[in-house]
């Protein structure tokens, strides 16, 4: 009887995982890469419709994924790829909201299944496990480095409406992203995509720890 129950449990888990994988293929694969592309290029950046997800298991936190997939809100103010969503504004370029489409919304069971399937996606590449040491960071110093001293705010927001729009907002990073991913991406964005429009600033270890700590300490939507 015990063997029967174990087998049943295993069967259910397998079926569950298969559902998540199927949903990934059905709902996500049209816009997101679920496996590493043979090569990257600028043309690929221009043609892809959503961020790559083939390293989602290294990138995202499960609770955030499950919640966001049920009630998605825009992470990239300028969309993906930002260059496709620009128009002339009153004083320079502006985001053309009419070209941005809402993300697919899933029911709870599907969100759980998809989140688990996403978290099973890993690449041998580039997230350095244990790289972020977790030391407390002064919020004031962190904000100063994020803004004036290292220039991250040129493209990213650390509070709603505060900062640039060509990169993803980072005021929800602490609930959305894994700290080691944040560290590794800041350290070398081109390890994830050789052509991505976030530059490698060549930051040293103390900057990487400070900026990662600052972002991971930010409460979603709080003013830094």
């Amino acid at each position, binding site marked *: 009887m015990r063997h029967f129950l174990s087998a049943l449990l295993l069967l259910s888990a397998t079926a569950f995982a298969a559902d998540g994988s199927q949903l990934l293929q059905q709902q996500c694969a049209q816009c997101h890469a679920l496996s590493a592309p043979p090569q990257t290029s*600028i043309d690929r*950046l*221009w043609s892809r419709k959503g961020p790559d997800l083939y390293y989602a298991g290294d990138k995202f936190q499960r609770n955030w994924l499950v919640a966001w997939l049920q009630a998605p809100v825009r992470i990239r103010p*300028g969309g993906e790829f*930002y*260059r496709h969503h*620009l*128009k*002339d504004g009153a*004083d*320079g*370029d*502006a*985001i053309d909201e009419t070209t941005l489409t809402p993300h697919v919304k899933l029911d709870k069971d599907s969100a759980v299944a998809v989140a688990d399937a996403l978290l099973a996606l890993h690449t041998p590449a580039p997230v350095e496990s244990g790289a972020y040491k977790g030391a407390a960071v002064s919020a004031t110093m962190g904000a100063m480095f994020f803004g*004036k*001293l*290292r*220039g991250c*705010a*040129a*493209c990213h927001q650390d509070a709603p409406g*505060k*900062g*640039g*729009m*060509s990169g993803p907002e980072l005021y929800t990073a602490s609930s959305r992203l894994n700290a080691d991913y944040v560290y590794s991406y800041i350290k070398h964005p*081109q390890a994830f995509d050789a*052509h991505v*429009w976030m*530059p*490698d*600033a*060549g930051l040293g270890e103390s900057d990487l720890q400070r900026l990662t700590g600052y972002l991971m300490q930010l409460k979603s939507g709080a003013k830094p």
Partner: protein
Amino acid sequence: MKRLIAHSALALCLSPLAVHAGSAHPQAERNYDTYCVQCHGVHRNGKGINAAHMSVQPRDHTDSKAMSDVPDDEMFKAIKEGGLAVNKSILMPVWGKVLSDAEIHELVAYLRETCKCGK
């Protein structure tokens, strides 16, 4: 076929990608559109989507007079090593790990074309 070509040409003209079509440096133009437009703007005038929140405004690459004051080697250094390397803002990032030296040289030539100013 003629109609298809006409439609394609029209679409190209209407597309924001084609704002500076006809450059002698198409690869540099593509790089500019990918990396530089976020701050320097579709019209190359320093009014990109990120500019509004910046404490120091991105350079207007269509400003012939201001651009003519910047020698090629300084422009190359600013792109490759970032604003700080030429005593300008940290907000101009280091692109030397994304673009090769050859690509940056071509970008400098493209900027000369854009500003209509030689040096």
